[in-house]
């Protein structure tokens, strides 16, 4: 089978966050990376006396974590200020969604639905580095749903 010509990179991704799932903040011009972890399915296993092989059975899936890194700025209405306020609010509710191939009709969008901010990092850095300061937010969701985007 010939290798695929449909592979894509993450360079044109779009990402948005919201506190209520209705009004969205576009992070695309601040966001630098999106990492997804978790969602693993648990398994259990036992051994029986008569066989060397284990008996393996499937458990349930774990929640997923979405880590978004973005350029830190001190704009009054910038994403750092907005998301810091959401993290301060009771429950840390947040919604996040991203389009790996860009926010274009027909492309996939991955959505957290109602999720929880589990980590919000204030800025840090080194004296000698010229690298722009990054902020980081980690969001926990029951699952990422995949949809086709239509405008």
């Amino acid at each position, binding site marked *: 089978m010939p290798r695929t010509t449909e592979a894509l990179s993450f360079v044109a991704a779009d990402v948005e966050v919201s506190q209520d799932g*209705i009004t969205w903040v576009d992070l695309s011009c601040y966001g630098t990376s999106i990492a997804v972890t978790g969602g693993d399915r648990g398994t259990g296993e036992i051994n029986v006396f008569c066989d060397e092989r284990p008996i393996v059975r499937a458990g349930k899936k774990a929640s997923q974590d979405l880590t978004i890194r973005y350029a830190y700025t001190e704009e009054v209405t910038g994403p750092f200020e907005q998301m810091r306020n959401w993290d301060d609010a009771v429950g840390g509710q947040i919604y996040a*969604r991203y389009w790996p191939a860009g926010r274009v*009709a*027909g492309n996939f*969008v991955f*959505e957290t639905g109602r999720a929880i901010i589990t980590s919000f990092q204030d800025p840090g850095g080194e004296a000698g580095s010229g690298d722009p300061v990054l902020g980081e937010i980690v969001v926990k969701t029951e699952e990422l*749903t*995949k*949809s*086709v*985007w*239509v*405008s």
Partner: protein
Amino acid sequence: MAKLYRAIERVTFADGRRSLEMGEVDSLKGVTKKGIQVLMKKGAIAPVSSPPLKILPGWERKAEVLKEAKIEDVEDLLTADLPEVAKELEVSLEGLEEAADQARQWIEA
């Protein structure tokens, strides 16, 4: 062009309306012709053929009444302006909405 579509994949709308879950049927009102073409090309939706209302179980009488408002198949009912139809036929809007829900469930099954 068909007026009813079944979601083969979950569909999320830019205008913020409720996402269409896999298997649900919708008229995709407000989505541009180009948007519908893109979704069809992606295999995310498929057109649904619309049966006449009179073949739905127990709908003979309802179908006769709705025919007076030129509503003859499921597509007509699900894309109709129900408040206008309720006024025209002098029936309750609630009853009409319930009928539309029933027709939607039947076609989604």
